[in-house]
Protein backbone atom coordinates (compact mmCIF):
# COMPACT_ATOMS: atom_id res chain seq x y z
CA UNK A 1 0.00 0.00 0.00
CA UNK A 2 1.17 3.50 -0.83
CA UNK A 3 1.59 5.76 2.16
CA UNK A 4 2.28 9.43 2.64
CA UNK A 5 4.46 9.88 5.65
CA UNK A 6 6.75 12.32 7.38
CA UNK A 7 9.92 10.25 7.50
CA UNK A 8 12.81 11.06 9.77
CA UNK A 9 16.21 11.64 8.19
CA UNK A 10 18.79 9.30 9.70
CA UNK A 11 21.72 10.51 7.67
CA UNK A 12 22.60 12.40 4.55
CA UNK A 13 26.02 12.73 2.97
CA UNK A 14 27.63 13.70 -0.31
CA UNK A 15 29.23 10.48 -1.58
CA UNK A 16 30.50 11.80 -4.91
CA UNK A 17 30.43 15.15 -6.68
CA UNK A 18 26.84 16.39 -6.20
CA UNK A 19 25.69 12.84 -5.43
CA UNK A 20 23.86 12.51 -2.10
CA UNK A 21 23.02 9.42 -0.11
CA UNK A 22 19.96 9.96 2.05
CA UNK A 23 18.73 7.47 4.63
CA UNK A 24 15.34 7.88 6.27
CA UNK A 25 13.16 5.91 8.64
CA UNK A 26 9.44 5.39 8.25
CA UNK A 27 6.57 2.91 8.33
CA UNK A 28 6.27 3.01 4.56
CA UNK A 29 9.46 0.98 4.26
CA UNK A 30 7.41 -1.99 5.35
CA UNK A 31 5.34 -1.65 2.18
CA UNK A 32 8.25 -1.99 -0.25
CA UNK A 33 7.72 -5.03 -2.43
CA UNK A 34 10.62 -5.05 -4.90
CA UNK A 35 13.94 -3.42 -5.71
CA UNK A 36 13.50 -0.65 -8.27
CA UNK A 37 10.44 0.91 -6.70
CA UNK A 38 10.64 4.63 -6.07
CA UNK A 39 9.32 7.32 -3.77
CA UNK A 40 7.98 10.80 -4.43
CA UNK A 41 9.55 13.41 -2.19
CA UNK A 42 8.16 16.80 -1.27
CA UNK A 43 11.14 19.05 -0.70
CA UNK A 44 9.40 22.16 0.63
CA UNK A 45 6.45 22.97 2.84
CA UNK A 46 5.45 25.80 0.56
CA UNK A 47 4.65 25.86 -3.15
CA UNK A 48 8.05 26.66 -4.55
CA UNK A 49 9.01 24.13 -5.75
CA UNK A 50 5.56 22.69 -6.26
CA UNK A 51 5.94 19.14 -7.47
CA UNK A 52 7.33 16.14 -5.66
CA UNK A 53 10.57 14.64 -6.92
CA UNK A 54 10.68 10.96 -7.94
CA UNK A 55 13.72 9.16 -6.53
CA UNK A 56 14.46 5.43 -6.56
CA UNK A 57 14.92 3.41 -3.42
CA UNK A 58 18.50 2.18 -3.57
CA UNK A 59 18.31 -0.12 -0.54
CA UNK A 60 16.11 -0.75 2.47
CA UNK A 61 15.99 -2.58 5.75
CA UNK A 62 12.54 -3.64 6.89
CA UNK A 63 13.73 -4.47 10.40
CA UNK A 64 15.02 -0.96 10.93
CA UNK A 65 12.23 0.50 8.79
CA UNK A 66 14.95 2.43 7.02
CA UNK A 67 15.63 3.03 3.36
CA UNK A 68 18.31 4.78 1.37
CA UNK A 69 17.98 6.96 -1.71
CA UNK A 70 20.85 8.23 -3.82
CA UNK A 71 20.28 11.30 -5.95
CA UNK A 72 22.08 13.93 -7.91
CA UNK A 73 21.74 17.50 -6.74
CA UNK A 74 20.72 19.19 -9.94
CA UNK A 75 17.87 21.68 -10.03
CA UNK A 76 15.81 23.58 -7.52
CA UNK A 77 14.22 20.66 -5.72
CA UNK A 78 17.20 18.41 -5.21
CA UNK A 79 19.28 21.42 -4.15
CA UNK A 80 16.82 22.11 -1.33
CA UNK A 81 16.73 18.43 -0.42
CA UNK A 82 20.50 18.35 -0.17
CA UNK A 83 20.37 20.94 2.59
CA UNK A 84 18.34 18.87 5.02
CA UNK A 85 20.03 16.98 7.80
CA UNK A 86 19.58 14.24 10.39
CA UNK A 87 16.52 14.55 12.60
CA UNK A 88 14.53 16.59 10.11
CA UNK A 89 11.26 15.22 8.79
CA UNK A 90 10.57 14.91 5.09
CA UNK A 91 7.28 14.22 3.39
CA UNK A 92 7.55 11.04 1.34
CA UNK A 93 4.91 9.35 -0.80
CA UNK A 94 5.62 5.71 -1.53
CA UNK A 95 6.59 3.08 -2.25
CA UNK A 96 5.56 3.65 -5.86
CA UNK A 97 5.54 1.59 -9.01
CA UNK A 98 6.62 -1.93 -9.74
CA UNK A 99 10.25 -2.84 -9.37
CA UNK A 100 12.60 -5.33 -10.96
CA UNK A 101 11.30 -8.93 -11.07
CA UNK A 102 13.92 -10.89 -9.14
CA UNK A 103 12.24 -14.16 -9.99
CA UNK A 104 13.16 -13.97 -13.63
CA UNK A 105 16.58 -15.46 -12.83
CA UNK A 106 17.17 -18.55 -10.77
CA UNK A 107 19.86 -19.54 -8.40
CA UNK A 108 22.96 -20.47 -10.38
CA UNK A 109 22.13 -18.25 -13.34
CA UNK A 110 23.93 -15.01 -14.09
CA UNK A 111 22.31 -11.59 -14.07
CA UNK A 112 23.91 -8.55 -15.67
CA UNK A 113 23.07 -5.28 -13.94
CA UNK A 114 23.80 -2.24 -16.07
CA UNK A 115 23.55 1.24 -14.64
CA UNK A 116 24.24 4.65 -16.09
CA UNK A 117 24.93 7.60 -13.79
CA UNK A 118 22.01 8.26 -11.55
CA UNK A 119 20.42 5.05 -12.84
CA UNK A 120 22.86 3.06 -10.75
CA UNK A 121 21.15 3.37 -7.32
CA UNK A 122 18.09 1.09 -7.76
CA UNK A 123 20.40 -1.68 -8.97
CA UNK A 124 22.04 -1.89 -5.58
CA UNK A 125 19.10 -3.38 -3.71
CA UNK A 126 18.47 -5.61 -6.73
CA UNK A 127 22.03 -6.84 -6.58
CA UNK A 128 21.72 -7.58 -2.88
CA UNK A 129 18.52 -9.55 -3.36
CA UNK A 130 19.84 -11.53 -6.33
CA UNK A 131 23.00 -12.46 -4.45
CA UNK A 132 20.89 -13.51 -1.46
CA UNK A 133 19.00 -15.99 -3.63
CA UNK A 134 22.15 -17.41 -5.16
CA UNK A 135 22.21 -15.64 -8.49
CA UNK A 136 25.59 -14.64 -9.84
CA UNK A 137 25.65 -10.90 -10.53
CA UNK A 138 27.87 -8.89 -12.84
CA UNK A 139 27.70 -5.10 -12.67
CA UNK A 140 28.53 -2.64 -15.38
CA UNK A 141 28.36 0.92 -14.12
CA UNK A 142 28.86 3.91 -16.38
CA UNK A 143 29.65 7.41 -15.14
CA UNK A 144 30.58 10.70 -16.76
CA UNK A 145 33.82 11.22 -14.97
CA UNK A 146 35.88 10.12 -11.99
CA UNK A 147 34.30 12.56 -9.54
CA UNK A 148 30.84 11.14 -10.27
CA UNK A 149 31.68 7.54 -9.44
CA UNK A 150 29.96 6.08 -6.37
CA UNK A 151 29.17 2.71 -4.75
CA UNK A 152 31.88 0.85 -6.69
CA UNK A 153 33.04 -0.91 -3.53
CA UNK A 154 29.50 -1.81 -2.49
CA UNK A 155 28.80 -3.46 -5.84
CA UNK A 156 32.21 -5.18 -5.82
CA UNK A 157 31.21 -6.85 -2.57
CA UNK A 158 28.35 -8.54 -4.42
CA UNK A 159 30.24 -9.59 -7.53
CA UNK A 160 32.26 -8.70 -10.61
CA UNK A 161 32.01 -4.94 -11.27
CA UNK A 162 33.12 -2.98 -14.33
CA UNK A 163 33.21 0.78 -14.24
CA UNK A 164 33.39 3.01 -17.29
CA UNK A 165 33.76 6.77 -17.52
CA UNK A 166 32.84 8.76 -20.58
CA UNK A 167 35.94 10.94 -20.31
CA UNK A 168 38.26 8.11 -19.33
CA UNK A 169 39.31 9.84 -16.13
CA UNK A 170 38.69 6.67 -14.16
CA UNK A 171 38.65 2.94 -14.96
CA UNK A 172 37.75 2.09 -18.53
CA UNK A 173 37.02 4.89 -21.01
CA UNK A 174 33.78 4.53 -22.94
CA UNK A 175 30.19 3.40 -22.55
CA UNK A 176 28.65 0.51 -20.66
CA UNK A 177 27.77 -1.12 -23.96
CA UNK A 178 31.46 -1.44 -24.82
CA UNK A 179 31.99 -3.62 -21.76
CA UNK A 180 28.80 -5.62 -22.10
CA UNK A 181 29.85 -7.12 -25.43
CA UNK A 182 32.35 -9.40 -23.76
CA UNK A 183 30.18 -10.72 -20.97
CA UNK A 184 28.11 -13.90 -20.58
CA UNK A 185 24.77 -13.74 -18.73
CA UNK A 186 21.15 -14.93 -18.71
CA UNK A 187 19.26 -11.77 -18.00
CA UNK A 188 19.81 -7.99 -18.06
CA UNK A 189 18.47 -5.47 -15.58
CA UNK A 190 19.21 -1.90 -16.48
CA UNK A 191 18.52 1.68 -15.48
CA UNK A 192 20.00 4.85 -16.91
CA UNK A 193 19.69 7.47 -19.63
CA UNK A 194 17.27 6.72 -22.45
CA UNK A 195 19.91 6.41 -25.23
CA UNK A 196 21.65 3.73 -23.15
CA UNK A 197 18.39 1.85 -22.61
CA UNK A 198 17.59 2.04 -26.32
CA UNK A 199 21.01 0.71 -27.27
CA UNK A 200 20.68 -2.19 -24.86
CA UNK A 201 17.15 -3.03 -25.96
CA UNK A 202 18.25 -3.15 -29.59
CA UNK A 203 21.44 -5.12 -29.07
CA UNK A 204 19.96 -7.78 -26.81
CA UNK A 205 16.57 -8.49 -28.33
CA UNK A 206 17.39 -12.18 -27.91
CA UNK A 207 17.78 -11.88 -24.14
CA UNK A 208 15.51 -11.27 -21.22
CA UNK A 209 15.94 -7.55 -20.54
CA UNK A 210 14.27 -5.38 -17.90
CA UNK A 211 14.55 -1.63 -18.20
CA UNK A 212 13.71 1.04 -15.68
CA UNK A 213 12.39 4.20 -17.36
CA UNK A 214 12.27 7.84 -16.37
CA UNK A 215 9.59 10.33 -17.27
CA UNK A 216 8.50 13.70 -15.94
CA UNK A 217 5.77 13.10 -13.40
CA UNK A 218 2.85 14.90 -11.87
CA UNK A 219 1.07 12.69 -9.36
CA UNK A 220 3.38 9.66 -9.30
CA UNK A 221 0.43 7.33 -8.64
CA UNK A 222 -1.28 6.92 -12.00
CA UNK A 223 -3.92 9.64 -11.86
CA UNK A 224 -2.65 12.46 -14.06
CA UNK A 225 -1.44 10.72 -17.22
CA UNK A 226 1.77 12.75 -17.30
CA UNK A 227 4.11 9.79 -17.58
CA UNK A 228 2.60 7.52 -20.20
CA UNK A 229 4.45 5.69 -22.93
CA UNK A 230 3.03 3.82 -25.89
CA UNK A 231 2.66 0.08 -25.84
CA UNK A 232 5.18 -1.38 -28.28
CA UNK A 233 2.57 -3.54 -29.97
CA UNK A 234 0.37 -0.54 -30.81
CA UNK A 235 2.79 2.22 -31.80
CA UNK A 236 0.23 4.46 -33.50
CA UNK A 237 -2.74 3.56 -31.34
CA UNK A 238 -4.03 4.48 -27.96
CA UNK A 239 -2.60 1.67 -25.80
CA UNK A 240 -0.26 2.91 -23.15
CA UNK A 241 1.51 2.20 -19.90
CA UNK A 242 2.15 4.62 -17.10
CA UNK A 243 5.75 4.80 -15.97
CA UNK A 244 4.75 5.66 -12.41
CA UNK A 245 2.25 2.90 -11.75
CA UNK A 246 2.79 0.28 -14.47
CA UNK A 247 6.58 0.82 -14.41
CA UNK A 248 9.09 2.23 -13.91
CA UNK A 249 10.45 -1.23 -14.81
CA UNK A 250 9.28 -2.76 -18.08
CA UNK A 251 10.28 -5.84 -20.01
CA UNK A 252 12.17 -4.90 -23.18
CA UNK A 253 9.71 -4.68 -26.05
CA UNK A 254 6.77 -3.93 -23.81
CA UNK A 255 6.73 -0.17 -24.37
CA UNK A 256 8.20 2.23 -26.92
CA UNK A 257 11.18 4.05 -25.48
Amino acid at each position, binding site marked *: *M*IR*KELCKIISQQEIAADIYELTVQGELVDQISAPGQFVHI*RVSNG*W*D*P*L*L*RRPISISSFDKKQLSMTMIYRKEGKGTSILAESGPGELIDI*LGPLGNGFPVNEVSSGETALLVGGGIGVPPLYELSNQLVAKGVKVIHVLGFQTEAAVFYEKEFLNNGETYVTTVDGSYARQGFVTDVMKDLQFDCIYTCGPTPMLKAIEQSYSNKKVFLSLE*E*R*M*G*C*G*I*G*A*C*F*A*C*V*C*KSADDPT*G*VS*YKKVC*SDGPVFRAGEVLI
Partner: protein
Amino acid sequence: MSRLNIELPGLTLRNPIMPASGCFGFGREYSKFYDLSVLGAIMIKATTLEPRFGNPTPRVAETTAGMLNAIGLQNPGLEKVLGEELPWLSQYDVPIIANVAGSLEEDYVEVARRISKAPNVHALELNISCPNVKTGGIAFGTIPEVAKQLTRKVKEVSEVPVYVKLSPNVTNIVEMAKAVEAGGADGLTMINTLVGMRLDLKTGNPILANRTGGLSGPAIKPVAIRMIYEVSQAVSIPIIGMGGIESAADVIEYFYAGASAVAVGTANFVDPFVCPTIIKELPDLLEKLGFEHINECTGRSWKKDGQLAYHRA
Protein backbone atom coordinates in the same frame (compact mmCIF):
# COMPACT_ATOMS: atom_id res chain seq x y z
CA MET B 1 -26.07 20.33 11.53
CA SER B 2 -23.68 20.47 8.63
CA ARG B 3 -22.20 23.79 7.69
CA LEU B 4 -21.13 22.45 4.33
CA ASN B 5 -24.07 20.96 2.41
CA ILE B 6 -24.82 22.72 -0.84
CA GLU B 7 -27.58 22.48 -3.44
CA LEU B 8 -26.71 23.29 -7.01
CA PRO B 9 -28.50 22.43 -10.25
CA GLY B 10 -28.45 18.65 -10.42
CA LEU B 11 -26.16 18.38 -7.43
CA THR B 12 -26.94 17.71 -3.81
CA LEU B 13 -23.52 17.99 -2.25
CA ARG B 14 -22.59 16.99 1.28
CA ASN B 15 -19.81 19.53 0.95
CA PRO B 16 -18.64 21.86 -1.80
CA ILE B 17 -15.23 20.24 -2.30
CA MET B 18 -14.50 18.14 -5.38
CA PRO B 19 -11.40 17.08 -7.25
CA ALA B 20 -10.99 18.94 -10.57
CA SER B 21 -11.19 17.19 -13.89
CA GLY B 22 -7.97 15.64 -15.14
CA CYS B 23 -6.35 15.77 -11.72
CA PHE B 24 -8.03 12.72 -10.27
CA GLY B 25 -8.39 10.30 -13.19
CA PHE B 26 -11.57 8.32 -12.60
CA GLY B 27 -10.90 8.12 -8.89
CA ARG B 28 -9.29 4.67 -8.73
CA GLU B 29 -5.87 5.84 -7.57
CA TYR B 30 -7.15 8.14 -4.85
CA SER B 31 -9.59 5.50 -3.63
CA LYS B 32 -6.54 3.76 -2.22
CA PHE B 33 -5.92 6.73 0.05
CA TYR B 34 -9.43 7.44 1.31
CA ASP B 35 -13.11 6.68 0.90
CA LEU B 36 -14.28 8.70 -2.11
CA SER B 37 -17.71 9.08 -0.51
CA VAL B 38 -16.32 11.85 1.71
CA LEU B 39 -16.07 14.09 -1.34
CA GLY B 40 -18.76 16.56 -2.36
CA ALA B 41 -18.56 15.33 -5.94
CA ILE B 42 -15.98 14.09 -8.42
CA MET B 43 -15.18 15.77 -11.71
CA ILE B 44 -13.89 12.93 -13.82
CA LYS B 45 -11.30 13.18 -16.54
CA ALA B 46 -12.39 14.60 -19.88
CA THR B 47 -14.20 12.03 -21.97
CA THR B 48 -14.18 12.11 -25.75
CA LEU B 49 -16.13 9.99 -28.20
CA GLU B 50 -13.14 7.90 -29.23
CA PRO B 51 -10.24 6.87 -27.03
CA ARG B 52 -7.29 9.27 -27.22
CA PHE B 53 -3.63 8.78 -26.51
CA GLY B 54 -3.01 12.48 -26.05
CA ASN B 55 0.25 14.35 -26.58
CA PRO B 56 3.78 13.00 -26.61
CA THR B 57 5.81 13.26 -23.39
CA PRO B 58 7.12 15.23 -21.55
CA ARG B 59 3.64 16.35 -20.67
CA VAL B 60 4.30 18.28 -17.49
CA ALA B 61 6.78 20.97 -16.50
CA GLU B 62 7.16 22.72 -13.21
CA THR B 63 6.94 26.49 -12.85
CA THR B 64 7.27 28.65 -9.76
CA ALA B 65 4.25 27.77 -7.59
CA GLY B 66 2.61 26.13 -10.57
CA MET B 67 2.89 23.53 -13.27
CA LEU B 68 2.24 23.25 -16.97
CA ASN B 69 0.45 20.27 -18.42
CA ALA B 70 -0.21 19.17 -21.95
CA ILE B 71 -1.83 15.81 -21.43
CA GLY B 72 -3.92 16.35 -24.55
CA LEU B 73 -7.15 14.86 -23.26
CA GLN B 74 -5.86 11.30 -23.03
CA ASN B 75 -8.83 9.14 -22.09
CA PRO B 76 -10.22 5.71 -22.78
CA GLY B 77 -13.18 7.00 -24.81
CA LEU B 78 -16.90 7.13 -24.14
CA GLU B 79 -17.58 3.38 -24.35
CA LYS B 80 -15.07 2.48 -21.73
CA VAL B 81 -16.02 5.34 -19.44
CA LEU B 82 -19.66 4.23 -19.64
CA GLY B 83 -18.83 0.56 -19.43
CA GLU B 84 -16.10 0.50 -16.83
CA GLU B 85 -15.25 3.74 -15.08
CA LEU B 86 -18.70 5.02 -14.17
CA PRO B 87 -19.97 1.62 -12.98
CA TRP B 88 -16.84 1.28 -10.86
CA LEU B 89 -17.46 4.72 -9.37
CA SER B 90 -21.07 3.84 -8.58
CA GLN B 91 -19.89 1.90 -5.53
CA TYR B 92 -19.31 5.28 -3.90
CA ASP B 93 -22.07 7.52 -2.67
CA VAL B 94 -20.83 10.57 -4.54
CA PRO B 95 -22.27 12.48 -7.50
CA ILE B 96 -20.16 12.50 -10.64
CA ILE B 97 -19.69 15.50 -12.88
CA ALA B 98 -18.67 14.27 -16.31
CA ASN B 99 -16.20 16.45 -18.19
CA VAL B 100 -17.17 16.39 -21.86
CA ALA B 101 -14.68 17.20 -24.60
CA GLY B 102 -14.36 16.85 -28.34
CA SER B 103 -13.06 18.35 -31.54
CA LEU B 104 -16.32 18.87 -33.36
CA GLU B 105 -19.69 20.03 -32.15
CA GLU B 106 -21.18 16.64 -33.02
CA ASP B 107 -18.66 14.90 -30.79
CA TYR B 108 -19.56 17.03 -27.81
CA VAL B 109 -23.24 16.48 -28.42
CA GLU B 110 -22.92 12.74 -28.78
CA VAL B 111 -20.78 12.34 -25.65
CA ALA B 112 -23.14 14.60 -23.70
CA ARG B 113 -26.23 12.76 -24.86
CA ARG B 114 -24.95 9.38 -23.83
CA ILE B 115 -22.91 10.12 -20.75
CA SER B 116 -25.74 12.18 -19.22
CA LYS B 117 -27.79 9.00 -19.07
CA ALA B 118 -25.38 7.27 -16.71
CA PRO B 119 -27.12 6.93 -13.34
CA ASN B 120 -24.33 8.41 -11.24
CA VAL B 121 -23.63 11.33 -13.58
CA HIS B 122 -25.50 14.24 -12.00
CA ALA B 123 -24.12 17.02 -14.14
CA LEU B 124 -21.95 17.66 -17.17
CA GLU B 125 -18.96 19.95 -17.32
CA LEU B 126 -18.56 21.17 -20.86
CA ASN B 127 -14.86 21.52 -21.50
CA ILE B 128 -14.74 24.27 -24.11
CA SER B 129 -11.44 25.51 -22.80
CA CYS B 130 -8.74 22.88 -23.08
CA PRO B 131 -5.64 24.72 -24.25
CA ASN B 132 -3.79 21.57 -25.25
CA VAL B 133 -5.78 20.32 -28.18
CA LYS B 134 -5.11 21.60 -31.64
CA THR B 135 -8.46 21.31 -33.34
CA GLY B 136 -11.75 22.77 -32.27
CA GLY B 137 -11.34 23.60 -28.61
CA ILE B 138 -9.95 27.06 -28.97
CA ALA B 139 -12.86 28.65 -30.86
CA PHE B 140 -15.41 27.08 -28.54
CA GLY B 141 -13.60 28.66 -25.61
CA THR B 142 -12.86 32.11 -26.95
CA ILE B 143 -15.70 33.17 -29.27
CA PRO B 144 -18.89 33.92 -27.33
CA GLU B 145 -21.28 33.08 -30.14
CA VAL B 146 -19.62 29.72 -30.78
CA ALA B 147 -19.67 28.86 -27.08
CA LYS B 148 -23.32 29.80 -26.80
CA GLN B 149 -24.25 27.68 -29.76
CA LEU B 150 -22.40 24.64 -28.42
CA THR B 151 -23.98 25.08 -25.01
CA ARG B 152 -27.44 25.18 -26.55
CA LYS B 153 -26.82 22.05 -28.60
CA VAL B 154 -25.54 20.16 -25.59
CA LYS B 155 -28.41 21.38 -23.41
CA GLU B 156 -30.87 20.02 -25.94
CA VAL B 157 -29.61 16.48 -25.49
CA SER B 158 -28.38 16.36 -21.92
CA GLU B 159 -30.51 14.68 -19.30
CA VAL B 160 -28.66 16.45 -16.48
CA PRO B 161 -27.73 20.08 -15.85
CA VAL B 162 -24.83 21.44 -17.86
CA TYR B 163 -21.97 23.47 -16.41
CA VAL B 164 -19.67 25.18 -18.86
CA LYS B 165 -15.96 25.38 -18.07
CA LEU B 166 -14.54 28.74 -19.02
CA SER B 167 -11.07 29.47 -20.31
CA PRO B 168 -9.18 32.34 -18.67
CA ASN B 169 -7.30 33.03 -21.91
CA VAL B 170 -9.73 35.66 -23.10
CA THR B 171 -9.94 39.43 -23.08
CA ASN B 172 -13.43 39.50 -21.66
CA ILE B 173 -14.47 36.62 -19.43
CA VAL B 174 -17.80 38.24 -18.54
CA GLU B 175 -18.83 38.24 -22.16
CA MET B 176 -18.07 34.51 -22.44
CA ALA B 177 -19.98 33.78 -19.24
CA LYS B 178 -23.03 35.71 -20.38
CA ALA B 179 -22.96 33.98 -23.75
CA VAL B 180 -23.06 30.48 -22.29
CA GLU B 181 -25.70 31.56 -19.76
CA ALA B 182 -27.77 32.76 -22.70
CA GLY B 183 -27.09 29.39 -24.33
CA GLY B 184 -28.81 27.75 -21.38
CA ALA B 185 -25.93 26.75 -19.13
CA ASP B 186 -27.06 25.76 -15.64
CA GLY B 187 -23.76 26.73 -14.09
CA LEU B 188 -20.15 27.67 -14.76
CA THR B 189 -16.89 26.11 -13.74
CA MET B 190 -13.84 28.31 -13.83
CA ILE B 191 -11.07 28.59 -14.46
CA ASN B 192 -9.31 26.20 -16.77
CA THR B 193 -5.56 26.68 -17.16
CA LEU B 194 -3.70 29.70 -18.52
CA VAL B 195 -1.61 28.97 -21.59
CA GLY B 196 2.06 29.00 -20.65
CA MET B 197 5.46 27.66 -21.61
CA ARG B 198 8.83 26.71 -20.15
CA LEU B 199 12.08 26.33 -22.05
CA ASP B 200 14.92 24.03 -21.18
CA LEU B 201 18.06 25.92 -20.24
CA LYS B 202 20.41 23.36 -21.78
CA THR B 203 18.71 22.69 -25.10
CA GLY B 204 16.71 25.88 -25.62
CA ASN B 205 13.71 23.76 -26.52
CA PRO B 206 10.32 23.80 -24.87
CA ILE B 207 10.23 21.35 -21.96
CA LEU B 208 6.82 20.11 -23.06
CA ALA B 209 6.74 18.05 -26.24
CA ASN B 210 3.56 19.96 -27.09
CA ARG B 211 5.57 23.20 -26.61
CA THR B 212 2.85 25.11 -24.74
CA GLY B 213 0.74 23.80 -21.89
CA GLY B 214 -1.83 24.82 -19.31
CA LEU B 215 -0.66 26.60 -16.19
CA SER B 216 -2.31 25.47 -12.96
CA GLY B 217 -1.59 25.67 -9.25
CA PRO B 218 -1.33 28.46 -6.66
CA ALA B 219 0.33 30.78 -9.22
CA ILE B 220 -3.01 31.29 -11.02
CA LYS B 221 -5.24 31.74 -7.99
CA PRO B 222 -5.41 35.55 -8.11
CA VAL B 223 -6.48 35.44 -11.76
CA ALA B 224 -9.22 32.94 -10.98
CA ILE B 225 -10.46 34.95 -8.00
CA ARG B 226 -10.67 38.08 -10.10
CA MET B 227 -12.57 36.35 -12.89
CA ILE B 228 -15.06 34.73 -10.52
CA TYR B 229 -15.54 38.09 -8.80
CA GLU B 230 -16.39 39.70 -12.14
CA VAL B 231 -18.51 36.90 -13.55
CA SER B 232 -20.52 36.15 -10.41
CA GLN B 233 -21.83 39.71 -10.46
CA ALA B 234 -22.86 39.47 -14.09
CA VAL B 235 -24.66 36.13 -14.29
CA SER B 236 -27.33 34.44 -12.21
CA ILE B 237 -26.12 30.87 -12.49
CA PRO B 238 -23.80 29.37 -9.87
CA ILE B 239 -20.06 29.01 -10.23
CA ILE B 240 -17.81 26.15 -9.24
CA GLY B 241 -14.43 27.80 -8.73
CA MET B 242 -10.97 26.37 -9.20
CA GLY B 243 -7.35 27.36 -9.68
CA GLY B 244 -4.64 26.80 -7.11
CA ILE B 245 -6.86 25.86 -4.20
CA GLU B 246 -4.88 24.07 -1.51
CA SER B 247 -6.41 24.99 1.86
CA ALA B 248 -9.66 25.72 3.64
CA ALA B 249 -8.74 29.42 3.59
CA ASP B 250 -8.49 29.29 -0.19
CA VAL B 251 -11.96 27.76 -0.36
CA ILE B 252 -13.41 30.64 1.66
CA GLU B 253 -11.63 33.15 -0.57
CA TYR B 254 -13.25 31.55 -3.63
CA PHE B 255 -16.66 31.70 -1.97
CA TYR B 256 -16.16 35.36 -1.06
CA ALA B 257 -15.33 36.01 -4.71
CA GLY B 258 -18.60 34.45 -5.80
CA ALA B 259 -18.17 30.67 -6.01
CA SER B 260 -20.81 28.27 -4.69
CA ALA B 261 -18.54 25.23 -4.70
CA VAL B 262 -14.90 24.60 -5.57
CA ALA B 263 -12.65 22.07 -7.22
CA VAL B 264 -9.12 21.14 -6.27
CA GLY B 265 -6.73 20.14 -9.04
CA THR B 266 -2.97 20.36 -8.89
CA ALA B 267 -2.83 20.21 -5.10
CA ASN B 268 -3.87 16.53 -5.27
CA PHE B 269 -0.49 15.73 -6.80
CA VAL B 270 1.33 17.42 -3.96
CA ASP B 271 -0.84 15.96 -1.22
CA PRO B 272 -3.16 13.09 -2.13
CA PHE B 273 -5.15 13.79 1.04
CA VAL B 274 -5.75 17.46 0.27
CA CYS B 275 -9.50 17.12 -0.41
CA PRO B 276 -10.42 15.24 2.79
CA THR B 277 -8.09 17.50 4.78
CA ILE B 278 -9.85 20.62 3.51
CA ILE B 279 -13.26 19.05 4.16
CA LYS B 280 -12.21 18.32 7.70
CA GLU B 281 -10.79 21.78 8.35
CA LEU B 282 -13.56 23.86 6.80
CA PRO B 283 -16.14 23.69 9.62
CA ASP B 284 -13.63 24.95 12.19
CA LEU B 285 -12.54 27.79 9.96
CA LEU B 286 -16.17 28.77 9.33
CA GLU B 287 -16.79 28.70 13.07
CA LYS B 288 -13.75 30.90 13.67
CA LEU B 289 -14.91 33.39 11.05
CA GLY B 290 -18.42 33.42 12.47
CA PHE B 291 -20.35 31.72 9.68
CA GLU B 292 -23.09 29.23 10.40
CA HIS B 293 -22.99 27.86 6.90
CA ILE B 294 -20.54 28.12 4.04
CA ASN B 295 -23.21 29.46 1.71
CA GLU B 296 -23.11 32.70 3.69
CA CYS B 297 -19.68 33.30 2.18
CA THR B 298 -20.69 33.27 -1.47
CA GLY B 299 -20.15 36.65 -3.09
CA ARG B 300 -19.38 38.38 0.20
CA SER B 301 -16.71 40.51 -1.47
CA TRP B 302 -19.32 42.33 -3.53
CA LYS B 303 -22.68 41.73 -1.88
CA LYS B 304 -24.24 44.14 0.53
CA ASP B 305 -24.71 42.60 3.93
CA GLY B 306 -27.99 40.82 4.23
CA GLN B 307 -28.34 40.14 0.54
CA LEU B 308 -28.85 36.50 -0.15
CA ALA B 309 -26.39 34.16 -1.70
CA TYR B 310 -27.52 32.37 -4.83
CA HIS B 311 -28.26 29.02 -3.24
CA ARG B 312 -30.24 30.45 -0.36
CA ALA B 313 -32.74 32.07 -2.67
